[in-house]
Structures are given as structure tokens and as C-alpha cells.
């Protein structure tokens, strides 16, 4: 049970971004995304500036561009949706290379793509510079109700267990010639889902018992205090503040 293992999105490092307290980073990312989303979509240059800002943060965090871009592929399903918009949206239409496209659809696609991509990039940078445990502590310090933090930490701990059990069950299934193609196999997969659930639960239950036996009562005891200095807050908030400046320019220009 690896509560302490780094998650797969985390990239170990010692950059200034890695060292910032997690709740500062969380707050910064949240503010940044809010600012980005409230920017008018017509101010295309503003989005370019946001991208530059994020690029700078990634640079300071020493995250290679390839790593960042690969992680951002999670966005692909939405790109597909956005690409559809110009075809199906209503209103005024333009001809582009013989295809009739909706103007508002094009704007909509641009809007979703630009804002979505920036949001994804910001989250990816956060995830690659912050360990899971830190992130949970950060959420706790940002006054997320303790019960939610507790469920989240159990969830992450169980994530490992489930992945593990899944792999073992898949190996067992495949070594008996099961092939997961076609709708008829849903039953088998569903049944393994049930078994998976029980197996994971019973493994996790034992850890939980051990935790309760040592006085665990719903929230992780604080062993090392995480505090943020004013300077750290200032550094973390530099990103959303510069974004805000860009956003305000976007509205006035």
C-alpha cells in the first residue's frame, strides 16, 4: 500500500516551483484558471501571453516541453468535440476551402480550445511539481472539509490497490484465453469488477484497522507543519496576478 509513493504524474525535482507550499500552488492555479476563463475570447493575443506565462513557470520548474505536451494529451477528446463545433453551430456561415463553417462555431471552438488547453497545462504543471500527499495537505489547509480530504486520501491509497488487483486479475483472465473484445464480454468484465471491488476493499480494510488502532480518527495527524511565508505566497501568486493584468488589458483594449 503505497501512500507515500510518488504518483505517476509527479516529476521529481528541486526547483523553486517544487519547493512552494502546496496550498499556495493550488490557490495560484485556481486563480489563474479563473482569470483565463473570464478573458474575452476575442483577445487572442491575451491567450498567447498566458501561454508564455505558463511556459515561464514550466521553465522555472524545469519540466521538459515533451513531458508537458505528452501529459496534455488528456485533452484530446475535447479537441474532437471542439472541432465539431464549426460544422454544427448555427448562425452566419463562411466558406473555408469549400466547406461551410459557422462563424460562431469557429469562435466557440477557439474559445474552448484556448481556455481548455491553458487550464489543462496549468493543472499538469501543478501535478508534476507537487506530490500527492502534499496536495492533500494543501487541500486541507485551504479549508476543504476534512471528510472530503479523508475520502480523497483513501481514494488515492485505494487507487494503488485497485491497479494492483486489476493487473493480477487481468493476467489470470488472459491466461485462460479471455479476450476483451465485443459487447458479449461485458458480463465477464462486470463480474470481475465486483470481485475486484471486494478484493480491494478487504485489503484496504486491514490497513484502515491498523490506522484506527493507532488513534486515527478521520484526519491525518500533523507530523511536519507546512506553513507558507509571505514571500512564498508572493511568488506563487505572481502567476495569477500577471495573468490578471493581461486579462484586464484584454477587456479594455
Amino acid at each position, binding site marked *: 500500500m503505497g501512500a507515500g509513493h510518488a504518483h505517476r504524474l509527479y516529476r521529481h525535482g528541486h526547483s523553486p516551483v517544487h519547493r512552494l507550499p502546496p496550498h499556495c500552488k493550488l490557490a495560484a492555479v485556481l486563480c489563474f484558471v479563473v482569470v483565463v476563463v473570464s478573458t474575452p475570447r476575442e483577445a487572442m493575443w491575451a491567450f498567447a501571453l498566458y501561454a508564455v506565462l505558463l511556459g515561464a513557470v514550466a521553465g522555472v520548474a524545469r519540466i521538459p516541453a515533451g513531458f508537458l505536451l505528452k501529459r496534455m494529451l488528456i485533452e*484530446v*477528446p475535447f479537441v474532437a468535440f471542439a472541432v465539431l463545433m464549426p460544422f454544427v453551430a448555427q448562425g452566419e456561415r463562411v466558406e473555408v476551402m469549400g466547406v461551410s463553417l459557422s462563424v460562431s462555431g469557429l469562435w466557440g471552438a477557439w474559445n474552448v480550445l484556448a*481556455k481548455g488547453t491553458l487550464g489543462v497545462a496549468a493543472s499538469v504543471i501543478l501535478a508534476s511539481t507537487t506530490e*500527492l500527499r502534499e496536495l492533500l495537505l494543501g487541500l486541507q489547509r485551504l479549508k476543504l472539509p476534512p*471528510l472530503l480530504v479523508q475520502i480523497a486520501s483513501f*481514494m488515492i491509497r*485505494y487507487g494503488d490497490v485497485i491497479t494492483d488487483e486489476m493487473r493480477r486479475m487481468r493476467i489470470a483472465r488472459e491466461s485462460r484465453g479471455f479476450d476483451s473484445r465485443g459487447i458479449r464480454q461485458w458480463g465477464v468484465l*462486470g463480474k470481475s469488477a465486483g470481485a475486484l471491488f471486494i478484493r480491494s476493499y478487504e485489503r484496504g480494510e486491514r490497513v484502515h484497522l491498523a490506522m484506527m488502532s493507532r488513534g486515527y480518527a478521520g484526519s491525518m495527524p500533523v507530523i511536519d507543519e507546512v506553513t507558507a511565508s509571505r514571500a512564498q505566497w508572493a511568488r506563487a501568486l505572481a502567476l495569477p496576478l500577471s495573468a490578471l493584468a493581461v486579462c484586464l488589458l484584454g477587456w479594455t483594449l
Partner: protein
Amino acid sequence: MHVPDGFIDIPVSAATGVIAAGAVAVSLRGTRRELDERTAPLAGLVAAFIFAAQMLNFPVAAGTSGHLLGGALAAILVGPYTGVLCVSVVLLIQSVLFADGGLTALGVNITNMGVVTVVVAYLIFRGLVKLLPGKRGSVTAAAFAAALLSVPAAAVTFTGMYMVGGTTDVAAGTVFTAMVGVHTLIGIGEATITALTVGAVIAVRPDLVYGARGLTVPLQLRVGGRLVDAAPAPAPAPAAAPPRSSRKVWLTGLGVSLVLAGFVSFYASSDPDGLEKVATDKGIDKEAEDHWLGDWPLADYGVEDITGARLSGGLAGVIGVGVTVAAGSGVFWAVRRRRNSAQSADSAGSGESWKAAGGAESRAEKTV
């Protein structure tokens, strides 16, 4: 169904944010009745399970991919309040950590995939369990129906949000048809997985299924080699939630049903046209989605290659919503009637306080 940043405009995002926060606050309060310290990790497991299940994207009609929503599973396994919390946590972590679903769209996502699915599924589930004979098979069947209908319900809500606050001007009928059609199909997958999981858990550990609580056998003592009945212990936690809270659930359900019904009558008439056709014609390539899945540790639980049947989206949509609304309101009224006739002194519930939820207490007071 995760909505990214910038997809829904700021006012609607903010409004759904308030709805989601309210629902979470109410749930934090209600959860104290559903969870004790032994079942707390179950909530985490359900969350992890939903998380994993949402990684299994299966292609459905028109090249769109769908995934399980998990609200029904959560509601049945850990109870509706905890269910809302589980799904909310999943969505929060997905958005913070995996950039799946925008941070500013968190309210939209929680309302759709957390609140609507859980409430609709739980209402249907409770209603069916009360109507069907009290056997384990009934619980599984009710789980199937609940999961089946919860998914199109979420799709309908999404369409509603999109109509009010979508940043792109796409015809209502188009979005409606595509979303509901696709999600009716997803509902079948969801129902299968949910029913089989609930069935499997009930068979082995019935004590873990919230929706099937209430089995107790009198204790016995072994005295001189013989078994004698022990003095009855103080009654364990009541099987059903206390009356006040369940009324709240029913009222919420009524509200949601009305909203859903409103959207349906308003938009069902608009002419459904061809998002699906466009999607297939322009070849939204399925391969694209496999790349990011390939990196994910859970990706090897292979369901990616299930090829979905192609159903006419329009027809499926209309049928799906019709059935949802009819079944939802029918079950609701049937149960209401039975409740009224059998209104009894449900034990007023556990006095044990869930300490962790204390902080949210005051906020919950305000929103209720």
C-alpha cells in the same frame, strides 16, 4: 462527460458551483448517518473505483466515447449523501491532478455527474426496492434500473446547462439528441457494471451495501457446550435514514424531476439533426483517444475495444428521456403514497457525531 474550462460561461459555472457547494454541504451533514469509522474507507474505495471506472472509455455510437459515471454505484453502496461526496472528490482530484474537467467547470461537473446521477439513481433504487420483494435479487435489479436511468438524466441536465450557458451557439436539438442518445447507450454499460458489482458485493459482504442494510441475527452464547440466546444488544444503526432526511431527499428528487421534465417538454420538440452524421462522415478518429489512455496505469484493463452498436441517436434519445421521466416520476409517486400510509416512528437515528464533518456544519445550516 467532463466539461473543460471555457465550455460553459461564467454565470452558469458560478451558479452550478453554488448548487454543487450546497449539495456537498448538505451531504457532509447527511453523511454522518451513513458512515461510521469502519465504513469510512468504503467511501474512499467507492471513489477510487469510480475513478478507475471513468478511465474505461468505451466508444459508443458516432465515434463519441463514453465512460461510467458511477453515481448510481456510489449511492447504492455507501448511501446517497456519501455518494455525492465520493463523486465530487473524484471530480475534484481528476480536475486538479489529471486536468480532466476544468477547475472552473467543477460546479458543472459535480452537479451533472455527482448530484444528478446520485439523486436520480437513489430515488429509483429506493422506490424499486420498496416495490419489489425483499430479496437480494431485487436489490441487484433495482441497481440495474437506477444506473440505467441515471446516465441519460445527467445528459439531459448537461443539455440544459449548455442551452443556458453554452459558449457556442449549437442548436438545442442537436446537443440534446447527441448527448442523450449516446448516454442512453452508456447507461446500458453503466447499468451492467453497477448491477454486477452490487450483486457480487451483496453475495460476499452484504454488510458493505448501504442499500441492503437491515440483516441481523440474534446472538448466541456457548454455555457448557450448548448454544443459548444472548441478551439482546442495543439496536444497531437504523436501516433507513431518519424521516426528516429522507423527506429532504424526496423533495430534492421532486425538484430535479420537475426540472428534467421541464427541459424535456421544452426541447424534445426541436428537430433533431445530424451531429452524429457529421461525426461519422468527418471521421472523428477513435485512435486519437488511445494515446492518453495508454499512459495511464489503469489503461490495461482493456475495454477500449468494445465496438458499440449504432443506434439512431434521435430515437434513443427520445425513448431514453421518456422512460427516465416516466419511471422516475412513477416510482416517486408510488413510494410517496406508500410512505404516507406507512408513516411510522422510524428511530430518530444515531446520535453519534461524525467529528470530521464538524467544520461544514454551520455552512450546511445556511444552505438548507
